[in-house]
C-alpha cells in the first residue's frame, strides 16, 4: 500500500487534481468479506456446541483434551514456521485450532486421565508436523491433518485409544453394577476401581453382535451359547434417542450425532461447508446399512443406528468437508463423500475395526488428486466444434 500512502492528503481542489497520482492495480477492486480466518472462526464456532456436549458427557476430560490438542497443533505450527523462516501469520488463520479441535473430539475421554495426558499433545504435534507442515503448510497437505494425528495415536497407543469410559450420566449405574459384582457398597469403591470402569461403544457392540451371529451360523454345535451372547448384546445396545443425543461411550466430541447434524447444517447454510460431501456420504451409508439390515436384521443394525453412532455425523460435516483434502470440483466432492461413506460401511461391516471414519477419510484423501483429474470441469458452453 505504499503507493496509496503517497497520495498527499491535500484538499480536494480541481487544480490539485492534475498533480495527484492514483493507485494503479488490475481489476477487480472489490472483494467480499470472507477471509480464511473468518471461515475457520465459523468452523470453531460451530464446534462449540459439540464441545459443550462433550463437557456435559465427559466433564473435565473434554476440556483437557481440547486444550492439549490445540496447544500441540499451535506449537508445531509455530516451530514449523520458525524452521522455514516464515512469519507466524498462519497461527492466526485458525486452521491449526480447527485441526486441534477435530483431533481432540475424536479421542476417547480416558486419554485425559493422569498418566496419558501427553498423548493428546503429541497427537496435536504430529497432526500439524507430519500432516501439514511437511507438505508445505495450509493448502498443500494431502491428508486431513487431524486424521493423521489420530492415526498416529492409534498406532502408538492402541490400548489407550480403545479405552472407553461411560459418560457422566451413565456413571452412577456403572458404579452400581461394579459394586454389585464386587459385593461392596457403591461408596466403598476405590478411585482406581472407578477409573478402570470401561464401557463398550455402540459400534463395538454392533461388531460383536455381528461376530456372534456369524459364529452361531457357522458352528451349529455351540449355537445356543452364541445366540445367548448375541441376545445379551442386543439387550445392552442403546436406544436411538440415547445414541442421537450421545449418551453412550465414545470419543469426547463425536458421540452426539444430533448436535453434530445441527451444527453441520448451520455450516452448510452459512456457506462454509459444501453440502455435497456430507449428502453423498450420508446417502451411501443409509443405502448400504439399509440393504445389510434388510438382508439380515438380526445381525446388522439399521441405517439410523449407523447414522447416529461413532464419528459418522461429525465426520460427514466436519471432517469430510475439510477443504484441503477434498476435490475442488462439485462432482468430485460428491464422489469423495460417496467414497467415504462406502469405505466407512465396508470397514464397519467387514473390517477388523468397529469404526472406519478415520481410515475412510485418509484413503479418500489419497484418491483426491485422481478424482479431481477425472472430474475436471468443461468450460461453460464447451469448445466450438470446427
Amino acid at each position, binding site marked *: *500500500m505504499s503507493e*496509496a500512502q503517497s*497520495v498527499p*492528503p*491535500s*484538499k*480536494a*481542489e*480541481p487544480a*490539485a*487534481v*492534475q498533480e*495527484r*497520482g*492514483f*493507485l*494503479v*492495480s*488490475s*481489476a*477487480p*477492486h*472489490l*472483494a*467480499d468479506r*470472507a*477471509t*480464511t480466518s*473468518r*471461515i475457520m472462526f465459523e468452523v470453531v464456532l460451530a464446534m462449540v456446541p459439540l464441545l459443550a456436549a462433550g463437557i456435559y458427557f465427559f466433564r473435565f476430560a473434554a476440556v483437557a483434551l481440547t486444550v492439549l490438542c490445540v496447544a500441540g497443533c499451535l506449537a508445531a505450527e509455530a516451530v514449523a514456521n520458525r524452521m522455514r523462516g516464515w512469519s507466524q*501469520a*498462519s497461527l492466526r*488463520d485458525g*486452521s491449526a485450532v480447527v485441526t486441534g479441535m477435530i483431533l481432540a473430539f475424536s479421542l476417547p475421554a480416558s486419554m485425559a486421565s493422569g498418566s496419558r495426558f501427553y498423548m493428546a499433545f503429541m497427537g496435536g504435534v504430529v497432526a500439524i508436523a507430519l500432516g501439514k507442515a511437511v507438505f508445505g*503448510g*495450509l*493448502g*498443500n497437505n494431502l491428508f486431513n491433518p487431524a486424521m493423521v494425528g489420530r492415526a498416529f495415536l492409534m498406532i502408538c497407543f492402541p490400548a489407550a485409544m480403545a479405552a472407553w469410559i461411560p459418560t457422566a450420566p451413565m456413571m452412577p449405574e456403572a458404579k452400581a453394577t461394579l459394586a454389585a459384582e464386587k459385593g461392596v457398597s457403591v461408596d466403598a469403591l476405590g478411585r482406581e476401581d472407578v477409573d478402570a470402569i470401561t464401557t463398550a461403544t455402540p459400534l463395538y457392540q454392533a461388531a460383536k453382535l455381528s461376530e456372534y451371529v456369524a459364529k452361531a451360523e457357522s458352528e451349529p454345535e455351540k449355537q445356543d451359547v452364541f445366540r445367548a451372547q448375541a441376545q445379551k448384546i442386543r439387550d445392552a445396545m442403546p436406544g436411538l434417542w440415547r445414541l442421537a443425543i450421545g449418551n453412550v461411550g465414545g470419543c469426547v466430541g463425536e458421540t452426539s450425532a444430533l448436535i453434530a447434524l445441527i451444527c453441520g447444517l448451520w455450516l452448510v*447454510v452459512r*456457506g462454509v461447508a*459444501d453440502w455435497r460431501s456430507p449428502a453423498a456420504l450420508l446417502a451411501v451409508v443409509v443405502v448400504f446399512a439399509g440393504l445389510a439390515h434388510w438382508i439380515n436384521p438380526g445381525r446388522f443394525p439399521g441405517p439410523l443406528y449407523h447414522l447416529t453412532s461413532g464419528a459418522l455425523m461429525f465426520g460427514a460435516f466436519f471432517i469430510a468437508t475439510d*477443504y*484441503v483434502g*477434498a476435490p*475442488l*470440483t*462439485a462432482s468430485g*466432492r460428491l464422489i469423495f463423500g460417496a467414497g467415504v461413506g462406502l469405505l466407512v460401511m465396508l470397514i464397519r461391516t467387514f473390517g477388523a475395526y468397529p469404526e472406519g471414519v478415520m481410515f475412510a477419510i485418509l484413503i479418500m484423501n489419497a484418491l483426491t488428486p485422481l478424482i479431481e483429474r477425472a472430474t*475436471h*470441469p*468443461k*468450460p*461453460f*458452453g*464447451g*469448445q*466450438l466444434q*470446427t
Partner: protein
Amino acid sequence: MIQVLRDRLKGLKVFSRGIHPPHRKKYSESLPIRAYIPKGELMIPMVQHIGAPCEPVVKAREEVVFGQKIADVGAPVSAPIHATVSGKIGVGTVCLLPSGRRVPALPLKPAESEALPANVLEDFLDRDWDGVDPAGYDPEAIVQTVREAGVVGQGGATFPTHFKLRRNPKTPIDTVILNGCECEPYLTADHRLMVEAPEPIVIGLQLAVRACGAERGIIAIEENKPDAIEAMRKAIAGRPELDVVVCATQYPMGGERQLIAAVLGREVPSAPLGLPLHVRVVVVNVATAHSIARGVVKGKPFTHRVVSVTGGGVVEPGNWLVPVGTMFSELIAACGGVKPDVVKVLAGGPMMGPTVPHLDVPVTKGVGGITIMTEAETAHWQESPCMRCGRCVSNCPLYLSTTKIAHAVMHRDYELAEKYHMSACCECGCCSYVCPAGIPLAQYIRAGKNQVRMIAAQKKAQDKKAG
C-alpha cells in the same frame, strides 16, 4: 445461497454461479443526465474500438465542425471517428488510454463560440420518435450507416457494431438481446438513458433486429432498476416482436455468455472461438442501440455518450452527456473534484474497470463511467495460501478451475494454464471477489493471458525474421 433461492422463486432470469456484489448505485442512480460542455482541449484517440486503428483524414490546425469525420480506415473491423465539438485540430500526438495503452491521438481545441449546439442535451434525449418506421430501412443500408456513424459497442468491449449486424447466411440470427443489465456496481449511465430516452433505444433495437434478420428483440434489465423496466415496457407497447425481461441482480449478468444463458437458456461455446452468433444471437448494449437509432434515423454520428461519475471519492456524483475525448480531469473538476482520501480512479466499474494513474486520460467511446474509490471502498489483496476451499471454482460463471489456472500462471507454466482453459476466462473477477485467502486470481489470469499473447507476438515476429 439465500439470494439465489429468492431470485429463482421470484421467477427472475438467472444464470448459474456468479456473485452478488454490493450495488452501490445510490450515488448517481436518481440524478438526471446533464450536458457537459468542454472548455479545455480534447484528446481524440485514434484507437477507440477493437480492430484496425484509424488514420486522420484532417490536417493539423484544420478547423472542423461538430460531427465531421476526422479519422477512418479501410479495414472491415473498424469504425470512423468524428469531431465531437467544433474547433481546431492540433498536431497529432500520443495519449494514454484508460486501458493503459499509449496510442496516437488528435488534440481538438473547442471553438470560442458555438463549439456545440445549444440544444445538444435535448437533441440527445429527444423522445419524439413516433413517425419512425424501422421496417422502411433496408438492412444493408442500416449496416452501412451504422458504420459511417462510428457506432461501437458501448458496454466496454468497443467492438464495431456494424460488423455484428451484418447478415451472414452461414450464421443466421434469430434473436437480438438488448443488454440493459449494467451489472457493474456503481455505474448508472445505461440506467439513466433507459429512463430518460427509452424510445430511441427501442427504435435502435428494431433497426438491429431488421439489419441482422432476427425475428425478435429482447430487452434484458436487472431487477434493481424498476424505473428503467417500467420506462422500457411503456416504450415497447404495440410492438409484438419485442419483449422486456427482468433479470436477477447478479454479477456478471451483463456478460454476453451469462445473459444469453439467463434469457434464452442457450450456451455460447467458450472463448476465444465461440461467439453469440453461434447460438443465433446478437447482443447489443442499450447505449449502442440509442446510437444506432440516432445514426440511422437522424444521421447523427457517434460523438457523445453518457458517463456516470460516481463513487465515494467524488464530491458531487452525476451522470453526464460527454463529448468523446473530454479529459477525465475536466469532467471530474466539473463534479467538484475528488475527496482527499481517494486511492483509485477507474475507467468503468469496480469489477472490470482498469485504473488510471492520473487524470490526463480522455473519455473514449467505451467508457461508461468513472468510479472514484476511497481507501475504505476498495479491496486489499493480502495473499495467503490457497486452502482449496473451492469458492473460486464454484463461483466462476464459465466453470473454470480458477485456482489451478492462477497457480499455473504463478509458476509461469502457461501451457498448463491453457490446459485448464485459461483463454476461456472472461476476466469478470468473480474469483478474486470470493477468494477468502485474498489471492488476486483474476489479476493473475489476466497477466497470464497477456504473457501468452506477448509470447505469441514475439514468436510471430521471429518467424517473420527467419523466413
